């Protein structure tokens, strides 16, 4: 269950960035990008089904654990291959790799609770229901 983003709700306040950094000892895993003058897009770990970071990781520090792409810090050598392999640029490394752990030990990821605009959820159904409702509203209003 990755964190789904409703981009139409994102207000570019960067709360998720700061919250993530706060609960991960200053090493955050979220980047909010300003897409021109009209939108902002937070880039999260997708917890990909076929995660290239896990394929690149030769020690098995990064591995699939059901839906989650998990990380075992004990096995990490800090080689940085995962950073090169991640197509979204969300895995990064200094001495060790840093990636989203969906805030293990918390009831919900900090970014999700903290988001002032309610743009984040772990509920895929909610994300798609909102998109359908928006499409219906646009049809009803004639645009």
């Amino acid at each position, binding site marked *: 269950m990755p964190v789904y983003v409703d981009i139409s*709700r994102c*207000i*570019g*306040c*960067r*709360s998720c*960035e*700061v*919250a993530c*950094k*706060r*609960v991960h000892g*200053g090493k955050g895993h979220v980047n909010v990008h300003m897409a*021109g*003058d*009209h*939108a*902002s897009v937070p880039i999260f770990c997708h917890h990909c089904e076929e995660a290239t970071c896990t394929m690149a990781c030769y020690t098995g520090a990064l591995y699939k654990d059901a839906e989650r792409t998990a990380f075992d810090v004990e096995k990490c050598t800090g080689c940085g291959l995962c950073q090169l392999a991640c197509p979204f640029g969300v895995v990064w490394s200094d001495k060790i790799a840093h990636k989203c752990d969906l805030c293990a030990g918390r009831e919900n990821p*900090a970014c999700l*609770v*903290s*988001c*002032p*605009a*309610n743009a984040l959820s772990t509920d895929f159904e909610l994300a798609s229901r*909102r998109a359908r*409702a928006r499409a219906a*509203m646009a049809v009803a209003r004639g645009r």
Partner: protein
Amino acid sequence: MPQVLVPTVCPYCGAGCQFFISVEKERATGIEYMPEHPASEGSLCSKGNAALEILYHPDRLHHPLKRKGDGWARISWNDALELTARGLGGALKRFGPECVGFLSSSKCTNEENYLIEKMARCLGSRNIDNCARLCHSPSVVGLNRTLGAAGMTNPISDIANSKCIFIIGSNLAENHAVLSRWIHRARDSGAVVIVADPRMTHTAWMADIFLQLKPGTDVALLCGMAHVIVKEGLVDSEYIGKWTRGYERLVESVLDYTPEKVSEITGIPAGDIVRAARAYAISPASSILYSMGITQHSTGTDNVQAIANLALICGQLGRQGTGVMPLRGQNNVQGACDMGALAEFYPGYRRADDPETAKFFSCAWGVDLPVGRGLTATEMVDAAARGKIRAMYIVGEDPANSDPSSSYTRDALEGLDFLVVQDIFMTATAQMADLVLPASAWAEKEGSYTSTERRVQWSCKAIEPPGEARSDLEIVCALANSLGLEFNYPDAASVLSEINQLVPQYGGIVRERLNGAGLVWPCPNPDHPGTPILHTQGFKLQDGRAAIVPVQYRPAAEEASWEYPFILTTGRVAVHHNAGSMTRRSPSLIEREPELFVEINTQDAVKLRIADGDEVRVTSPRGGTTARARLTGRVKRGVVFMPFHFPGTNMLTTEATDPEAKIPEFKVSACKISRRD
């Protein structure tokens, strides 16, 4: 390890979000969210998430400091209090109480504001004010006159019930971020969102109708909308007949504001003005949200009155989903005003120029009190420049950065005989002081704060202040006592019980009832549940009717000229707060927005041979500063935008003020831009 969760109110904006500070071994170690909070539902913006970073910052003031040559000498609290008493007391005796100014703080608790205001007035000075002067003084004046109460009429969560949300002059997505969740919720159930702003802000991303007006033309836009509503017969005649006075004069006054004419003044297509007016008037529940884009003008009071007029003629008040919502910028700016830290009002908005008020508080406080309004924050600086104010006591404010035309303000403060500043950091203003007193941050003291939705909440003490720093309440009491007054308040609760007696709106807001989500004033007695929605049964004015006060468009004090071809408008960004003394010291915030920038339209920049990221010189008749150029389509040609969190921006802004509310016109100043090489 024993871990305690202490509920506190966020020290940044006025939304009133609460969070828990987790405390281990007397140290604040983390933040936990509070999903049951009625306004934030547990969310926090970037500033709130980073709030703890300032608590243990190495720049925190730990000891009282006295100026010694160009540097500072550490002194004891006894010496500091004696010196302050001698400095202020001497000025009071030599020049009279009118020559001493007091600035209270909208970052301090209600109790502290009440005491600072009480101290100033008990010493005979009428010159007490707070930085609400620089943000919402026109709301206090304009809304008190038209609606009889200055404050948000409906709660934040009620925005979700609105069917048309008109946001004018507010970038709430960045500055009151938690409000956006309620706006999204309203949109999900079909609400139309209208945003009027000179800049394509993050808030404008939420808009169905975006009105990009020229800075300073808000009255024209609002009158234009009223014109359409009157002409098309979309007014709520029943509401007007029952609850208002002055409608006929309004009809006459908006006659000339045809969409075509307004379009010429504001630069908004006439069709959009008509669409916005219809959407607002027709919807079963419309609300207006505004903030500094409305107030920080030389026509600030007119802007506010024009907003109230629009709501009144459409009957969009006193019900769910309706209302006029001034969004306050600081965590306790509403409370500082409620507590009478204002030149023209005593606690509970009793007029200072009414002899009855002075009599009432003279009886309560046991001293003779002066009648009449005092000097406002901006007037105090002027008076200091002219030598009329000789000594000042400034608590938690940084006029050297936050007032317009900084070099003028700095000269004025430098010229004071005695300046004492009480703050948590060495601000630019504190640098100029004779004496600096170390105060406590929000987590190091207890007390109540009133959020923008009039919600009074109690913030608990989580940790001890650093070094010898003390809470503002302790300092003020000690200072008042050494100046010959008798302030015997052992804690904030004892001050609150005095406030309960003297401020009718706070009559029932007693300490025991303030746990959790607090209470919304007016709450006149201990059994009253509070009043989330105002004006449900008429208005606190003559006959219970609101006053429609017609206004006319006046151009801003300064216009672009041949020499200064750009209009500079100022504002905030998501990761910083006001003069920035806290957020610029917060590592995770400053790294996201490290320096002053200026947004300039790409086409204008090309003509000036400025590229994105160039260092440019911005100059106005008052001074100049350097900033990093950001090329954008967010501002129209001829308009530039700068955030005011960095010293420099207010070097440029004009000292022109609103004639009634005395708020400076931060939002419109002429300037020119050039490359630095």
